[in-house]
C-alpha cells in the first residue's frame, strides 16, 4: 500500500533511474499521453464519459489521479512511432552510402497503463519481436520500458475488455500495477503489486507498508465494480469460425452503408500495426530517406497492386479490418487483435460498434 501523499516518490524513483516519464495529461481539454514532470501533470479529478462517436471529460467528485479510462492515444505512439526515419543515404559516384542519423531510444516509464493497453503492447510484441524478423526500434524501446499499470475502477463507456480477457485487471507483464482507492472524503491510497524484480526494487525505494485486509478488499471491490459496469460483450468462443463462415454476409453491406472508411478506428486502435514506406529525396535528389509511417487498411491504396486495388468496395475494407482483428489475427499471431478498449467505437465519427456488428452476424446464424 502506498499512500496518496507518497505517490510522487514513485515518479521520483523512476526519474532517478533515468526513465523518461510518459503518462496521461490534459491538453486542450483532451486526454493525451505525453511527458510527465511530476504528479501535478496528471489529470487529477477528471473522468471520461464515452459513447459511440462521443468522448467527454467530466469532473469527478474526488481527487483521483487515474480516475479516467482510455482516450484516443495509446502507448503505441511511443513504441511504434507513427512516423519514423528508417535510414538516409547520399548518392555517390558508384551508388549510394548510408548517412548516420540520430537514433533516439529513450528509456520510457509508462505511467498509468490500463490493462487493455498492457495487453495491446503484448499483442504488438508478437508482431514486431516474436516473428522471423525483429523491428530494432520497437525492440529497443520496448525492452527498456518500465510499465506502471493501473487497474480500472470503472468501465469505459464503450469498453468490452472483460470479454476479450484484457481487463479490467492487469494481467502479468507490468513492472508495477496500481489500484487506486479514493472517495470524496475518505482515504486515498494505492494498492501496489510488483510484477518484476525491477518493479519490486522501485517499490522498495518508496514509502509503503503491507496492505490491511480491508484495504485489499476495497481495491478488489473497485475492479469488480468496473467489471460489472461493462455494458458491452463479445462472444469470443467460436468467433473466428463464425467470421470465416460469413465472408459474404449481408451485414457487411449494412455496415458499409454507414462506414465512412476514414480509418479513425485504426489510428486509435492500440494494436493496429500496418504501416507503409515513403521514399523521399531532398530538392537536389542527392540525399534520399526512407520513412515508415502508419497506414490504414481502409484506404484504397492500401491494397494497390499494378492494375488496381484488391479491396475496392468499402464493404471489403471494413470486412478486412474487422475480420483481421477478430479472426485472421488468431491464425497469424495466436491471439485476438482486439483488446476491447472500445476506442474504435468512441472515435468512430458515425459510432459504428464492432460488438454490435459481430453480434448481428452471430444472431443471424442462431436467431
Amino acid at each position: 500500500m502506498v499512500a496518496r501523499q507518497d505517490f510522487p516518490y514513485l515518479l521520483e524513483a523512476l526519474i532517478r533511474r533515468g526513465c523518461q516519464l510518459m503518462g496521461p495529461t490534459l491538453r486542450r481539454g483532451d486526454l493525451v499521453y505525453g511527458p510527465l514532470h511530476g504528479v501535478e501533470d496528471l489529470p487529477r479529478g477528471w473522468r471520461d464519459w464515452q459513447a459511440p462517436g462521443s468522448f467527454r471529460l467530466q469532473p469527478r467528485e474526488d481527487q483521483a489521479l487515474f480516475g479516467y479510462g482510455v482516450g484516443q492515444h495509446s502507448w503505441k505512439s511511443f513504441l511504434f512511432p507513427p512516423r519514423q526515419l528508417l535510414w538516409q543515404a547520399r548518392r555517390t559516384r558508384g551508388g549510394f552510402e548510408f548517412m548516420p542519423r540520430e537514433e533516439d531510444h529513450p528509456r520510457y516509464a509508462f505511467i498509468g497503463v490500463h490493462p487493455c493497453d498492457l495487453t495491446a503492447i503484448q499483442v504488438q510484441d508478437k508482431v514486431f519481436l516474436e516473428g522471423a524478423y525483429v523491428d530494432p526500434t520497437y525492440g529497443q524501446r520496448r525492452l527498456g520500458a518500465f510499465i506502471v499499470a493501473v487497474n480500472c475502477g470503472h468501465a469505459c463507456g464503450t469498453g468490452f475488455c472483460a470479454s476479450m480477457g484484457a481487463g479490467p485487471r492487469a494481467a502479468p507483464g507490468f513492472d508495477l500495477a496500481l489500484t487506486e482507492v479514493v472517495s470524496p472524503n475518505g482515504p486515498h491510497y494505492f494498492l501496489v503489486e510488483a510484477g518484476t524484480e525491477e518493479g519490486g526494487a522501485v517499490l522498495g525505494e518508496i514509502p509503503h507498508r503491507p496492505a490491511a485486509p480491508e484495504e485489499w478488499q476495497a481495491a478488489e471491490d473497485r475492479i469488480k465494480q468496473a467489471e460489472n459496469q461493462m455494458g458491452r460483450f463479445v462472444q469470443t468462443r467460436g468467433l473466428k469460425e463464425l467470421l470465416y463462415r460469413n465472408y459474404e454476409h449481408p451485414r457487411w453491406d449494412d455496415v458499409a452503408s454507414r462506414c465512412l472508411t476514414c480509418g479513425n478506428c485504426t489510428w486509435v486502435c492500440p494494436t493496429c500495426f500496418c504501416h507503409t514506406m515513403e521514399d523521399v529525396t531532398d530538392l537536389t535528389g542527392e540525399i534520399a530517406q526512407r520513412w515508415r509511417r502508419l497506414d490504414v487498411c481502409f484506404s484504397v491504396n492500401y491494397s494497390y497492386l499494378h492494375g488496381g486495388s484488391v479491396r475496392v468496395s468499402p464493404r471489403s475494407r471494413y470486412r478486412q479490418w474487422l475480420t483481421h482483428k477478430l479472426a485472421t489475427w488468431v491464425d497469424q499471431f495466436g491471439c485476438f487483435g482486439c483488446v476491447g478498449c472500445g476506442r474504435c467505437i468512441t472515435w468512430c465519427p458515425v459510432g459504428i460498434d464492432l460488438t454490435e456488428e459481430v453480434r448481428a452476424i452471430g444472431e443471424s446464424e442462431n436467431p
Partner: protein
Amino acid sequence: MKTGDRGPETGNMEMSLDALIHPAAAQPMAPRQFLVQNVRRETPDTFTLTLARPNPEEGLIFAPGQFNMLYAFGVGEAPISISGDPDRPHLLVHTIREVGNVTRALCHQKPGRAIGVRGPFGAFWPVAEAQGNDVLVVAGGLGLAPLRPAIYYLLSRRAAYGSVEIIYGARTPQDLLYRRELERWRGRFDLRVHVTVDAAPSDWKTNVGVVTALLPRARLDPFHTVAFLCGPGVMMRFTVRELLNLGLKEDRIFVSLERHMKCGLGMCGHCQLGPVFVCKDGPVFRYDRVKDWLDRREV
C-alpha cells in the same frame, strides 16, 4: 515425397538453411548495394536485370521462388522475384515489368549503377522434397520469372527427378520471356516444353489458346507429380481446377501469389490474404493451405 505433411512454409529445408537464405534477419530494414551488370529487354515492357555484388566474394544465396525488395535510389522499393540460377548466387537476376514509377526506374538503370537489395524473402518451391517425382511447371506471362530458378535447379539435378514438363503461355509471341532459353530447353530430350499464346500472327507455328488446353498433353502420373504454378489469378484458378480433374491431389499443387508489399518482413500488413502474409508465409503456397481464400472476392 513428403509434401503431404510438410509444405514449403515449414519444410525441413527452410529450417536448415534459415540462416543462409534469410541474411536480412540481422539488418532487415537497410538495402545492400548491388551493381547493375547488364539490362536485357525481354518484351516491350519487361526487362531482365543482372546484378553483381560489388565484392564478388559475397553472393546472395536464395532458394527458387524467393523474392527481393529492389530499391531505386530516391524513387522507392518494389518486391521482385528472383529469376536467376540458385547455383550461381554471385549473380542476381530479376525480370521486371514496367508498371509504375519504381519498376520503371529499375528497368532503366544503366550498367555500373547501384541498386539496393533487401532479401531474399519468403517461402520457396519445394524442389528438394519433389525429388523422385515428376514435376509439372505451369507459367503464365511474367509468371515464368519466379519459376525459372526452379527449372534451373531441376535441370542441374535432372537425374533426381522423373519426367519434367513445362507449359508456358503468354498473350502474344512478343510477350514470351526468355525466348532463346525456351528454344534451348525445347531441344533437350529430357524435358518437354509446351508454349502457347492467346493470339498470334500467321507465322506462329505452334499452339494458340490458354495453358489449360495443353494440360492433357502433359504425360502426368497424378500420384507421382508435383505441380508448380505461377501466373495471373484466373490462369491459376483454371489450371488448378484442371489438375484436380486429372487426379492430382491438392497437396501436390503449389502456387505463387502476388500482393502489395512494403516491408517483406511480415510487419507492414499490406500483403495479407486472409490469415496469411504473402511475404513471409508465401509467396509460394501449397494449394490446400490457401484455396479457401483464392476464390473469395476482395479479400
